[in-house]
């Protein structure tokens, strides 16, 4: 092989920053074992250093220095051979900053490239989140609970080496398994981590995603204004006042204006599910939400505007009624529709929907407490994990 291979790691800001860095380091160090040369770097930004906003890290591996420089001369590679989503809910797309719009997770994947996802979901469910592409690519699933163990202190749950171990399988051109395992041994001085990587190599399954397969939604985007059109004095116009809400014959309540250029919902890994039958109209969720996500409905209940919610969970924490607001894993949803309207339209169907959704409480790895815990997790995923529809290749 004598070509450049570009790998992108899409991660959730401060929670997965060290994880993303470890993965990119591991790739370059492993490729080095085979005499290749590489670079690991992050797309610099302020926000991902502070919060959970989606961000990117890259590893580029090339046969020689001059070829590598072709990639170093640009900030981001134009297309990737591998895109790694370290949290499956990232597959819904990412909005990293204002005015960027929604970037599909697979936006940069070249024809025949691979999207690598850590998830407990079957591949077929993950494909539903991903935006359609005109050319075929592959989806590799590493069975496991997404890792959020990196805030302040990096609690090592082996997610880094599980992803590294899968790479020789999904892209043998990048690096061999032997080189990868040798690099992991050098970097972490741990036989246990080498074992985790090898197991991941065995457990990872891949399927092809055909052209046009996936979420057909056209992602929203904006044009950045030029300096002659921008407001002067580094100022942004304030939000205008909101308006009452119309539903059926009812008019009332209040919906505030929201930033049209930065929706923020792709920062979310969980969202509140509201049991309107239990709501006592106390206003606390509406008051305490740091992003003004709640609309005041004509009946004085509070509906979540899911395009504005970044999933912090404050509403669940302040709600005084048991089971009225429940945070649910974002992967249990495929749209941002109004829950209140569902409830108004068909109460029984809504109650059934709520019962089904609150079964999907968020599950994340925050590091292991004892040896063998990961094996227990994988076993508990049952038949649904890994394989998925389409089978291996």
């Amino acid at each position, binding site marked *: 092989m004598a070509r450049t291979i570009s790998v992108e790691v899409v991660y959730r800001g401060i929670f997965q920053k060290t994880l993303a860095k470890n993965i990119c380091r591991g790739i370059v160090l492993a490729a080095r074992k085979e005499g290749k040369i590489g670079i690991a770097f992050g797309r610099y*930004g*302020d*926000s991902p250093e502070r919060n959970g906003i989606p961000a990117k890290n890259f590893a580029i591996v090339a046969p020689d220095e001059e070829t590598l420089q072709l990639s170093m001369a640009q900030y981001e590679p134009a297309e990737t051979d591998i895109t790694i989503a370290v949290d499956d809910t990232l597959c819904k797309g990412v909005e990293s*900053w204002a*005015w960027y719009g929604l970037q599909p997770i697979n936006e940069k994947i070249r024809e025949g490239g691979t999207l690598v996802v850590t998830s407990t979901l079957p591949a077929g469910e993950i494909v539903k989140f991903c935006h359609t592409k005109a050319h075929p690519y592959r989806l590799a699933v590493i069975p496991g609970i997404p890792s959020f163990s990196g805030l302040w202190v990096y609690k090592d749950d082996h997610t880094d080496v599980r992803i590294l171990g899968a790479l020789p399988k999904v892209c043998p051109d990048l690096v061999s398994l032997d080189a990868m395992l040798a690099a992991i041994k050098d970097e972490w001085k741990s036989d246990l981590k080498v074992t985790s990587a090898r197991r991941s190599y065995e457990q990872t399954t891949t399927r092809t995603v055909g052209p046009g397969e996936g979420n057909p939604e056209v992602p929203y985007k904006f044009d*950045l*204004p*030029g*300096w002659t059109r*921008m*407001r*002067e*004095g*580094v*100022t*942004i*116009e*304030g*939000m205008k006042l909101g308006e009452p809400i119309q539903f059926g014959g009812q008019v009332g309540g209040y919906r505030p204006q929201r930033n049209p250029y930065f929706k923020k919902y792709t920062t979310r890994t969980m969202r509140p599910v509201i049991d309107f039958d239990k709501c006592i109209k106390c206003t606390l969720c509406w008051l305490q939400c740091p992003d003004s996500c709640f609309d005041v409905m004509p009946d004085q209940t509070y509906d979540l505007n899911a395009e504005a919610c970044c999933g912090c969970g404050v509403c669940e924490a302040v709600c005084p009624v048991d089971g009225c607001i429940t945070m649910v894993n974002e992967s249990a949803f495929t749209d941002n529709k109004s829950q209140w309207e569902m409830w108004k339209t068909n109460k029984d169907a809504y109650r059934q929907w709520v019962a089904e959704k609150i079964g999907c409480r968020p599950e994340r790895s925050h590091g292991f407490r004892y040896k063998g815990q990961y094996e227990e997790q994988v076993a508990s995923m049952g038949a649904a994990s890994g394989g998925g529809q389409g089978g291996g290749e």
Partner: protein
Amino acid sequence: MDAETATAVTVAAAEQEALISGSEAVAVASRLADVDVITAYPIRPYDTMMQYVAKQIANGEQDAEYIVAESEHSQFEIAKHASAVGARALCGSSGVGWCYAFEAIAVTPALRLPLLAMVGNRALDDPGAFGTEHNDALAARDLGWMHVWVDTAQEALDVTLIAYRVAEDRRVFLPCAISTDGAFLTHSQALVKIPPRAWVDEFLPRYDRGDLRFHPDNPITIAPQVNEDWLMEIRRQTDQAMRNARGVLEEAYRDFRRIFNRDYGNPFFEEYYTDDAEIVLVGMGTLSMPVKVVIRKLRAEGQRVGFVRVRWFRPFDYERLGGLLSRFQAVGVVDRDFSMGSPYNSGVLANEIRATLYGQPKQPPVVSFITGLGGREVTIPNVREMFEHTRKAAETGASPRDTLWIGVRA
């Protein structure tokens, strides 16, 4: 007596004469301009301005929010915020005090806040020193501040009024630093004509911040964080504002001449005996006194010498200044500042002049001088010496390869 002369006499009669220093002249101008918020923190030699403001307020002559902050950083921040809500604001400092305010200084231009700052030019400590050096104000030369160096107390008063008019023009909205040489201008009193308030009101419109005014009736966010997709456009906007300032300055000086009947000629630089000059010196600030005196002596001896005093350093009138200087047989540039390790080891102004001449079809030799640092006197023999070096360059037609330090003990 024709009508125009008659008007001039009436006008002159309405002015009052006062014996005040350059910094006191700035304080008087702040009263005439009805500045809303004045922030202060004492440091020599700028503190002569804040003392005079305090006196005017105590005497019931001036009505302003006068805030003595706990540091320069705070006083510049307070002035910045006052300016953002639509108040006419004034602050100021000297030397390392100006440097301590640098975080606020750096962000003011992009926010397009047209406040004024008086800089009593002072050497940067250490060693503890308080005489004139221009390096304090020049440290902020590239950031989008307008910079003007005045020569007399009268000019300090007039330029303060002009600077508010230009800074607060919607096409500009940039801060302006008014540099007054420490001691020579801040601590020496001269006779100054103080115009009546009515003239100032006619000359200086109300500060209207329009859609950029930070107010509950105009809800805006100021200075959010931006990434690389935005900053270059913001810089280009500030750049455009500084370009616009050139034309707005010309308008302001024209109007000033009409209303106050004082003519400064070209707003950007003053020419002294340049019409038939073979060689000239170029400099800024109170340096002009010894230079002008020497020019008169040399002219009596038959030497055709002249002087160009750069008044507005930012914006810099490189087109006209370049055209003027290229006419001479040699140009000597006198810096009361330094730029260690710069091309030709010269001061800041010398390299600005070299760059200005580069675009001209004819480039006379440039001789760069560093002198009068730390408030040291630039003596008459010093000036004669600089003219001699410049004359030599004119004769040989070659620029020296290095900068000459004048008046330094070897």
